[in-house]
């Protein structure tokens, strides 16, 4: 990796944070735009979450020999019930360790 890539990524991140604070005198985004922007995490995080869970090292979908799917489902259930970020992460991680050490 080259430092320039890191610096460009840093600039992009900064500009998205800075742009509206710099440009707007007051909040001008309408409710529709805000509603749509509020979907951004739901639109982007699954694109990061799904492929490493469902795909094996060769990039093919692996549904059978795959402890990650079960661990992720367990994490989702815990997350849904507890609404607690740390509980969700640890539920997924501990169930994953349990599965790879005892079943897979």
């Amino acid at each position: 990796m080259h430092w320039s890539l890191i610096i460009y990524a840093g600039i992009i991140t900064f500009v998205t944070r800075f742009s509206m604070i710099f440009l707007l005198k007051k909040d001008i985004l309408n409710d529709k735009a805000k509603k749509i922007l509020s979907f951004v995490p739901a639109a982007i995080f699954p694109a990061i979450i799904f492929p490493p869970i469902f795909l094996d090292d060769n990039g093919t979908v692996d549904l059978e020999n795959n402890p990650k799917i079960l661990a992720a489902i367990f994490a989702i259930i815990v997350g849904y019930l507890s609404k607690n970020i740390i509980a969700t992460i640890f539920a997924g991680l501990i169930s994953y360790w349990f599965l790879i050490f005892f079943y897979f």
Partner: protein
Amino acid sequence: MNNKLKNLVKGIIDVSPLMIPVVPFGIIYGVIGMDLGIGPYMTLGLSIIIFGGASQIVLLQLFSGGASTLVVLSSVGAVNARHVLYGAVLSEHLSSLKLSWKIILSYVMTDQAFAVSNNYFKKKGKDANEHYHLLGSGFTCWSIWQISTILGIVLGSVVPEELGLSFTISLTFLALLISDFRKFKNIIVMFVSGLVATIGFNTIPFKAYIIVAALSALIVATLLTLTDLKKK
């Protein structure tokens, strides 16, 4: 205690509970950076220069997958799109500040700092020094993120690969979505994004699967929002 210091301390206190999940996230990030072999300086460099967990992870993931600079950068841009919303919401409270203040506060404006300071601004009436609250919450996030990155760098050399810590990336992002699990529309948007990314992982050229998936899901989100507004 004067007003500035009071706001600053309040910001630190308000954001503190939200720092608990940031610590494991930062450690995991540091471990992964070391795992991918970019070395301690670059791993910490990303945390200081970019200062955004999701952006940093996406950058590492795509870079190690062999994506081009353009794809890496546009994916980082897509991940950051939510900050535009934060900026727009906060601009009302920060518009009268000096440019140097705007630069500093933009640099430290994370999800967590935005959440607590926006809440504070809404509750509190006019106060010329309210931005000290964001300074306090933002720099608390910053310090915790750097410290946990360093912890991860140190641990990265001792954590065995069999523990599958890379799986914790997926889990961390999953955990960030738990507030969306109870909203039906958000679940639809999540499935569209995940499905397009998984299918497109090998078929979409240039490792652009994150951008394509995010855009497809946002189009669906837009349609859902517009049909909802028509009903009313």
